């Protein structure tokens, strides 16, 4: 009997602790607006990342195909520098440099965060796309070229539509990574989900409730996305044997 009562007391205590920390003064609303910022940053950064990544991947693949083109060699060289810098430095440092050095006169921190995470993600998306393009059978390129299509026509009409299938699932994973990485946006005074939870922690002196709630919100989003990717992959696998 004693144990049951102890458990009951624990949960009642938890309930009132939750009420005190999250509901009083509408503090939960801070989490909602923080979540909103987190999603905005992740979503637009992914858009930028995909745009940059597509360009970089195509440059790198085309540069291998026509090694004689001087323009492609130059672009390829620049792309390699970009990828090495981005992948070789921590994303927090990149964010701080963007905020305190590059965009020092820009006051919109959200914009700076989107650009930083977008540039960061671009390097990883580029590698995802490059791998997806290279996974398409070489015979497909040869067939396109032997029909007289140019390199870029072959890429557009034959290779990319097939590469998409390899790319999409990995791209969703990149979005998951990005979503979690945005939790460092607090470094540049952005009220994202993590920062909001942290602010509740130091206004209420209750670290347990807000941080666990924040973690659960991330977890639910990531599990949801993972489930969607699973569905996606099964659909794509099915269309292979049509």
């Amino acid at each position: 009997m004693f144990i049951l009562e102890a458990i009951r007391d624990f949960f009642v205590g938890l309930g009132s602790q939750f009420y005190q920390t999250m509901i009083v003064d509408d503090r939960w609303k801070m989490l909602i607006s923080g979540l909103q910022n987190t999603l905005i940053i992740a979503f637009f950064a992914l858009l930028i990342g995909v745009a940059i990544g597509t360009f970089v991947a195509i440059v790198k693949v085309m540069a291998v195909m026509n090694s004689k083109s001087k323009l492609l060699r130059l672009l390829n060289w620049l792309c390699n520098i970009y990828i090495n810098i981005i992948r070789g430095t921590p994303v927090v440092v990149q964010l701080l440099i963007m905020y305190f050095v590059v965009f020092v006169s820009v006051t919109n921190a959200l914009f700076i965060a989107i650009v930083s995470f977008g540039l960061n993600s671009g390097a990883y998306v580029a590698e995802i796309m490059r791998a997806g393009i290279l996974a398409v059978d070489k015979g497909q390129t040869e067939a396109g070229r032997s029909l007289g299509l140019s390199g870029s026509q072959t890429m557009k009409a034959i290779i990319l539509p097939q590469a998409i299938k390899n790319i999409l699932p990995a791209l969703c994973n990149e979005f998951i990574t990005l979503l979690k990485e945005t939790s460092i946006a607090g470094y540049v005074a952005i009220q994202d989900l993590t920062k909001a939870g942290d602010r509740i922690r130091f206004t209420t002196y209750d670290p347990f409730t807000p941080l666990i709630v924040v973690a659960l919100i991330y977890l639910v989003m990531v599990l949801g996305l993972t489930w969607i990717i699973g569905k996606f992959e099964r659909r794509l696998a099915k269309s292979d044997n049509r």
Partner: protein
Amino acid sequence: MITVKKLNKKFGDNHVLRDIDEFIEKGEKVVIIGPSGSGKSTFLRSINLLETPTSGEIWYEDECITKPGYDADRIRRRMGMVFQHFNLFPHLNIMKNITLAPVMLKIMTQDEADERALRLLRRVSLQEKADAYPSSLSGGQKQRIAIVRSLAMNPQVMLFDEPTSALDPEMVGEVLDVIRELAEDGMTMIVVTHEMGFAREVGTRILLMDEGRIIEQNSPDRFFTEPKHPRVIEFLSKVL
């Protein structure tokens, strides 16, 4: 029609083609045979510049297609190529597979290309597959479609790179029938194959390659009945 002068191709240290000189006339059906690794496919792929020669020249009619800056796409539009592994586009249906290149290159409108595709499909008795996707076809059907896809560009030369090597034995016949019919229509063709019966029947000239060189060539009858080079006699004794 096609002149090859002192053609050499190296992949790193591997000297695949050695000083090949060859002249192919319009309407000829040249069949290239030889052991694997002898350079047959590389030679064929050099002719439409899928491989860039290390040295030497290839002339198509009065154009040197190996000179620096020559637009390889131009020559490829006039030469069809059929691959061992078909290389149909899996994401496009048969009709789109056939019409993609002529429409994209603005040689035909979509309507003209569709009409021509249907006519060609009827020729290989696959018109009912127009809306199917490649993965639903048998190997033999895929290869017949691949031939049709090349013909849709109205080529003057057809290159066949072991067109029946990836097929189940019972499907070889249907593909060879299509190639034979094409030969009878007067198409200039260069065929790399291991089908000796077909080589003898359809070829107007047979080349045997070994270690990057053409070591013997003759008309089909003489080639098989009076081989001279000891390597040719040895090769024929193995495959016949």
